[in-house]
């Protein structure tokens, strides 16, 4: 087993960077440089963890870098971190999002504060993905609200105050159910065992419960994660929030924080309450399919690019949820991969939209036309990202959606069939938006925009590389995901999924 110090560093380094950024706020540009430096260190750490990760540590299921320290016995509070194949990709994604959000969306208004909040958000998100303790996860999950709130409220668009409030209140209310569920589970476990209050994930996994208890707890957990994801009908906060947030904030929210929802659903709701699955599976699958269709349909009608990506995210998160809930191993591996791929693709989308907004001062589709002429490189990169999102074979989006759909057809053919239409719809709304924005004759302000500059192109390079690499050769990544998913499936449905 590897030392857990790496995981501690992953949490502490960005937090230290945030404090340092706050200290040097008076010096022009220094905070930004510090932020980028921290992000590079964080990225390096994440990659080290990703390469060192060994799924075959003895007696640790597929966890590595494990450690646990009890902080307060009366509260059942502990510092407990570990990485497995499911969280590993999220760790890399968290570091990647930070780096690209910083590089691609420099905002010079009160820069030190912006960098500080972004770093703090990274630290908390990282800690949520690394938590191997349910209470610890909840604390960091909830804590991500504070920096997000300040980022939206401080640097967002005209309706930022409303967006920030809506975001906070929605998610806060959702997690209320989660907290109650966690406490209930903790005490149920305490009363069954030695009487020590613990929220350790592996300990709670063995809690005995009746079917109806499992269902209620699953619902409590699922509400919180459905709000965060967002899954229809809990999605209403997301379009305004994504649209009003500054570019860096939109990236963090939709590429990363949304994944906290699906990650939580997979790890905690599914992992802790397998008894509830036979009852809840059809319901959640149906909601997932509705999310796919609803997100796609609204995306067709939406008037601006940011909302378009927001609604397309609702659809994509629907696919992820579908993969998580079917209970087939292939689909679950696909879902974990899609969590990463959707993150990368969304970074690409929001970065390019940010670049457009920087040039034109607008991301309304009606204001934009014929950008392909003056900005061919931008158009080309947008096309790659778009095609990956649609699921063109050879690009990353295809692999994950394909895995999810195969798995779903194996166990839940009807849901799979309807979900597949979502892939077609994605092609429709994205290509149509592309036509309107990039095709045609550029006139006026649209004709005079400049193409992506050197730095902007380089920021998009990692996105494009990941889209191509994971589209052609996903094996090393899949090899890391599979053992952990296998363990989870074994715990959840030892006898296989009932078709």
């Amino acid at each position, binding site marked *: 087993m590897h030392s857990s110090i790496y995981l501690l560093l992953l949490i502490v380094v960005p937090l230290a960077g945030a404090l340092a950024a706050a200290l040097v706020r008076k010096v022009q540009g220094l905070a930004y440089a510090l932020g980028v430096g921290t992000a590079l260190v964080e990225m390096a750490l994440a990659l080290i963890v990703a390469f060192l990760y060994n799924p075959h540590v003895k007696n640790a299921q597929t966890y590595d870098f494990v450690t646990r320290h009890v*902080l*307060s*016995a*009366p*509260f*059942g*509070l502990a510092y407990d971190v570990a990485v497995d194949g499911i969280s590993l990709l999220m760790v890399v994604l968290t570091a990647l999002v930070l780096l690209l959000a910083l590089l691609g969306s420099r905002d010079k208004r009160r820069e030190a504060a912006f960098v500080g909040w972004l770093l703090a958000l990274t630290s908390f998100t990282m800690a949520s993905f690394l938590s191997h303790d349910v209470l610890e996860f909840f*604390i*960091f999950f*909830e*804590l991500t*609200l*504070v920096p997000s*709130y*300040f980022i939206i*409220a*401080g640097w967002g668009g005209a309706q930022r*105050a409303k967006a*920030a*409030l809506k975001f*906070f*209140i929605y998610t*806060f*209310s959702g997690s*209320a*159910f989660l*907290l*109650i569920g966690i*406490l*209930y589970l*903790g*005490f149920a476990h305490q009363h069954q065992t030695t009487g020590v209050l613990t929220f350790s994930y592996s300990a709670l996994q063995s809690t005995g419960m009746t079917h109806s208890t499992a269902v209620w707890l699953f619902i409590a957990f699922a509400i919180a994660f459905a709000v965060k994801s967002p899954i229809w009908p809990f999605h209403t906060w997301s379009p305004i929030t994504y649209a009003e947030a500054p570019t860096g904030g939109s990236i963090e929210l939709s590429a990363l924080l949304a994944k906290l929802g699906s990650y939580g659903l997979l790890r905690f709701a599914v992992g802790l309450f397998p008894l509830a699955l036979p009852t809840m599976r059809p319901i959640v699958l149906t909601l997932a399919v509705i999310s796919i269709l609803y997100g796609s349909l609204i995306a067709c009608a939406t008037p601006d690019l940011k909302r378009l990506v927001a609604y397309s995210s609702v659809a994509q998160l629907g696919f992820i949820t579908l993969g998580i809930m079917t209970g087939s191993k292939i689909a679950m591996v696909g879902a974990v991969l899609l969590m990463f791929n959707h993150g990368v693709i969304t970074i690409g989308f929001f970065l390019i939209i940010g670049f457009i907004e920087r040039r034109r001062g607008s991301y309304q589709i009606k204001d934009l036309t014929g950008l392909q002429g003056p900005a061919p490189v931008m158009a080309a990169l947008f096309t790659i990202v778009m095609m990956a999102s649609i699921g063109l074979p050879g690009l990353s989006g295809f692999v994950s959606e394909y895995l999810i759909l195969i798995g779903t057809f194996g166990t839940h053919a009807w849901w799979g069939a309807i979900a597949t239409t979502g892939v077609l719809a994605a092609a429709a709304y994205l290509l149509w938006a592309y036509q309107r924005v990039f095709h045609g004759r550029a006139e006026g302000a649209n004709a005079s925009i400049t193409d992506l500059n050197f730095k902007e192109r380089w920021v998009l390079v990692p996105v494009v590389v990941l889209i191509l690499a994971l589209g052609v050769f996903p094996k090393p990544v899949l090899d890391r995901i599979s053992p952990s998913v296998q363990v989870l499936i074994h715990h959840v449905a030892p006898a296989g999924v009932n078709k």
Partner: protein
Amino acid sequence: MNLLATTTLVVPSIHYLALLPVLTFFGASLVLLLMSALVNTKVTINWATGITVATAIATLVYAFFQWSYIAHHGSTTTVAHAIVLDGFSVIGNVVIAVSLLLSALVAHDWAKRERVAGADFHILALASSAGALLMVQANDLIVIFLGLEILSIGLYVLVGFDRHRATSAEAALKYFLLGGFASAIFIYGAALVYGATGSTNLSSISYFLGNNVVLRPGLLYAGGALLLIGFAFKVAAVPFHAWSPDVYEGAPTPVTGVMASIVKVGAFAALLRVLISALGTQLDTWRPILFVLVILTCVVGASVALVQRNVKRLLAYSSINQAGFMLLGVWSGSARGVASTLFYVMTYAPVVVATFAVVTLIGGTGDDLHSIDHYRGLARRQPWLGGALAVLLFSQLGAPLTVGFYAKYSVLAATIDSGGGALALVAILSAAIAAFFYLRWILALYADDDVEGTRVHVPLFTGKVVAVGVIVAILFGVWPGPLATWCQHATMLFLP
């Protein structure tokens, strides 16, 4: 004559270590009173603050000795079992002493700004706090009543202390009339409980109820209900809260800070002793009443606060909502519940005093700039002050990494442990409603449309008090371990 000769008055044994905090507070109050009456030159505010601070620090020192006494000899009662010395009372004393210390420092700067001469504020605050200390240590309904009255009478005067504003006098009258009414209800309840159980002593009541079956419990139930109403008034639980917004608004802001902290500590400590120590056997009877009380208090407190524009009224409703959470720990009726309410009160007090310290500053000379609009852009103009207020509000909201989160967490845990899942859910959803107005206030702090507004001067002491509140909020928000363990130890010896 013969009769008198044979009757000797039995003086109960007195354990002075237990009484020292109360005696010191009264003593300090009397000394200040005498000084201002006898010394020719007016007792300056510096002297008054100095003596108050010294008194509070002395109580903290006693607490150390009391704690080690309890660790060695166990908890004990004295003065004919009317006063109790246990871990719970020591912690209660510490919280009251710290709250008074912080409030006195805020009041010091406030008095200088408002040109309030003399030691009146400190005399009354010390006396009131002595009443709260008595309530924390009381093991007898009569002593609780005594403490309640001492606490209240000082406050009635303090609320009407600002003679320049008519609202202050109005608030004092309101508080006095309704408070007197509540006291009457409380003492009537005590009388009925005495009638039903034959004693006013909490231990004796508990013993009686544990060893006898009350065949006609009407008297006991009525008595218990009246006691509960008396307490509900003092902690401003809905539907006995109507006085609180007006009084919070009308009272001079430092006094509001005292009310929100010290009164809550005293009242909750006594409430816990009465309901859990004395009437613990009647759990099934009072729990449903408390259930309704908690739901009303949480929901009404949070919802009505949404429409407030005056921050003092807003904080009044916010503190009603917080009281609902504290009642949650009482409802659970377990050792964990008592510990959690203690933890809640203990961490809420310094945070709320610091919040009112900021409100005192923004209130400006004349103490009437309390619209939320006066806070627009504060954190942009003065990042430290505005940031501090944001932290304090986040703590009251219950955001993680602030101590408010663990306070809410601990009462919710206790509630769920006692089987109150639905109650806990209602409470935490009310916290989500409450989040709305805290966040709106924070948004105002960070608004950037009024960056050029006037800066407020932060006097030394008030600045320190705000800093202490922020440190408590963050330090114990990251590291709640010691406080949690402390509360657990304090309540281990609490239950009969």
